[in-house]
């Protein structure tokens, strides 16, 4: 049954009448048109659907929509400000840290949550923090470098 859910989506107060048992992934994609959040496996193993909920990286395929009531959700579409790329996005571009690009939004949001907790991670900490996000094209070395570079540019900022 549809229920009224109020939450913040990419900085905007949002209210939606939606079945709270639907997964956040498909509500974001199908109801809000935020298709940057990708379906990869549907059971939380790959990380392609990662979004931020209250600054935590969460697998949106495994979260009922009702859970975001009163919370802040950030998707890949919410990172660039006025067309200016977020430092993490810019670092992925600068390092060609992607190929097919399908895992990229989930990678960037997982990295963002990591940097929010640990603004100056070591290489080992980046690897540990990213290890459950899968990439089949093998962009791993470049993604590690991009996150390291972004962390240094952000200097512990946002």
């Amino acid at each position, binding site marked *: 049954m549809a229920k009224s859910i109020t939450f913040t989506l990419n900085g905007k107060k949002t209210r939606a009448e939606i079945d709270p048992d639907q997964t956040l992934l498909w509500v974001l994609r199908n109801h809000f048109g935020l298709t*940057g959040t990708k379906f990869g496996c549907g059971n939380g193993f790959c990380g392609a659907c990662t979004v931020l909920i209250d600054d935590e990286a969460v697998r949106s395929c495994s979260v009922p929509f009702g859970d975001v009531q009163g919370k802040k959700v950030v998707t890949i579409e919410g990172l660039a400000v006025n067309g200016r790329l977020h430092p993490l996005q810019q670092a992925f571009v600068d390092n060609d840290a992607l190929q097919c690009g399908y895992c990229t939004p989930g990678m960037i949001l997982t990295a963002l949550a990591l940097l929010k907790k640990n603004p100056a991670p070591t290489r080992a900490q980046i690897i540990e923090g990213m290890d459950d996000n899968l990439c089949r094209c093998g962009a791993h070395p470049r993604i590690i470098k991009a996150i390291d570079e972004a962390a240094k540019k952000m200097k512990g900022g946002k």
Partner: protein
Amino acid sequence: MKKVNTTGKSAANEAAAIKRRDFFRILGGGILVFFSPWDALGIMALPADQARTLTKDYNAFVHFAADGSVTCYTGKIEMGQGIINSLPPMMADELNVAIEKVKLVMGDTELCPYDAGTWGSLTTRSFGPAMRAALAEARGVMVELASEKLKVPVSDLKVENGTIISVKDPQKKITYGELAQGKRIERYLTVKPPVEDYRDFTYVGKPRFRTDSVEKVTGKALYAGDLKLPGMLFARILRPPSHGATLKSVNTAPAEKIAGVKVVRDGDMVAVVSENKDLADEAVAKIEAEYTFSEMPVNDKTIFDWMLKADTSSSVSNTAGNIEEGRKESDVVFEHEYHDVYLAHAPMETHTALAVFEGEKLTVWAATQSPFGLQDGLAQGLGMQRDNIRVIAPFVGGGFGGKSAYQQGIEAARLAKVTGKPVMVVWSREEEFFYDTFHSAAVVKVNSGMDDNGLIKFWDYHVWMAGTRGAEQIYEVPNRKTTSYSRGRNAPPVHPFATGPWRAPNNNTNTFARECQIDIMAARAGIDPLDFRLRNLKNQHVIDCLKAAADRFGYTPGRLPSGRGIGIACGFDAGTWQATIAEISVDRNSGKITVKRLVCAQDMGLCVNPQGALIQMEGCLMMGMGYALSEEVLFEGGDIKTKGFDTYEIPKFSWTPEIECIILDRKDQAPQGGGEPAIIAVGAVIANALFDATGARVFRVPLTPSRVLEALKKS
């Protein structure tokens, strides 16, 4: 002007032959130059169901628009491999136009002339030179038009930055855009690629970063699953529990009870559709179905014996000398058997398609490596005219060969027809791991011999079910023979499920077997494995690769096993030569291998985009660690046991070794393939490094901890 072979053809005839759509209606005028690179694509093997009469068709064209832009239309697709970056530099250089003016339209059967599919690392090495030749000719067409307009002889004209200028009177000039204004000109060319002088290149050979990355980091890049049409339904299809199972009875009532879900049938297909994806997922799981099973009595352990006993036909190739003579000349003889397993492609994007009917007209957006193949499949599967079917491949989220198969597109179209609504099919991860066209398991037996100087005297090579890609003998062996066994004509199937091309199809298998055997021989000879290879090689391409890799690695000679954990291998794929060196460590308690370093050197001829080629090499090495260390489809009959990323483990961040890739400077040679070659030796270098570290030999991939422990016990 560059010389190309052309034969003029009557536009009217060709237009009739290819049922040309009204391009000018779509493109709004300009100048169109059609070309047909098929002559250059002799190596292209087409699946039988996709065979079209290629030579009569013009499979690409370039459009000069009034705004000065030049667009190449091609049926190739972008799946991460980066041709979106490697084609524009070639275009810009041939046309003498700024790269910003160059555009690509890809993978749309309505706009792009026929292309069989994007695979085999063929785009740059085969399509590229043909396109360049055609563009050189297209530039000639533009210069002729300018000559008429400016009243300046062709010989007095040059092209600079998209402007055709009189050499004698620079005031007399006209741009491509101005020439195209108000024109509707069609030209047809048949071209053969000339050998280009690389010194004329402005863009080719310079590193070029991805042009699609901003779209991809912002989530704006659209993949098939990101599209949405009014009234669109998500479909989930009832799937059998195993390959070879047939539906006996079905009770769809529990699914029908769910509000917002409809059960639909089309022939043997039972599906649920809903505007709500989660409800479709929930409903399909509620369907009760009974099956009859007729499965092959084979599993992932018995498959190798099964293959050896199968009804096969054999073909012999790479023969020279006489095996028996070679045996007599040998002081030491070796006989070993190597095994390779079924592998999944496991792209991050599962097979996805959106289909919609508008009257008789069907449009399908699909995650596919073969839009035209899908168009043919749809024509056949739905009994439709090809002209009524449009297939569009948006960005593809990884292919690796797996998206040459397009079952999902036909499923979406059938359901769109039955429901009368746009239908989106997104395979679940389980479906992806079930219906994937797996890399084939294989058996290789190598019988070889050498003399006391470590010179190989004979090589009797037998391969089951993998074919001979990568089985060409790269070493100097006077007596040699390759026998390849495949399913016999009219013989029962060997595989319990579908198999198909997987990045560098089967070259991984053959390179693994050959390079392990070479290492075993080097160890027995007491010769350093690099030295042993160099003694037995004459091909300068691969010698240069080995030396470049050894140099970068800082390789020092050692006798196997040296205890250092260093492995060497080399090989050939898609026209490209390569050598790889690995350094690993082994946990003797757990059997776990950690790859510390991978160095790969590659001779790919002229490298069109060094940045893109490097990334492909890195990707190959990372992906290759998967088949080397963990990836294996486990099955019992037609029942696939590995249907998730928890059971089918692909490489992860924590595996990332130090990776160094070297592309040899070969600007004066024709460009070769770049998407696959660097993956072929990863299995062999890791197996060889394990032997070097421990003296234990594993004769099969993947080198899982349990297999390593077992080999350690034996050594």
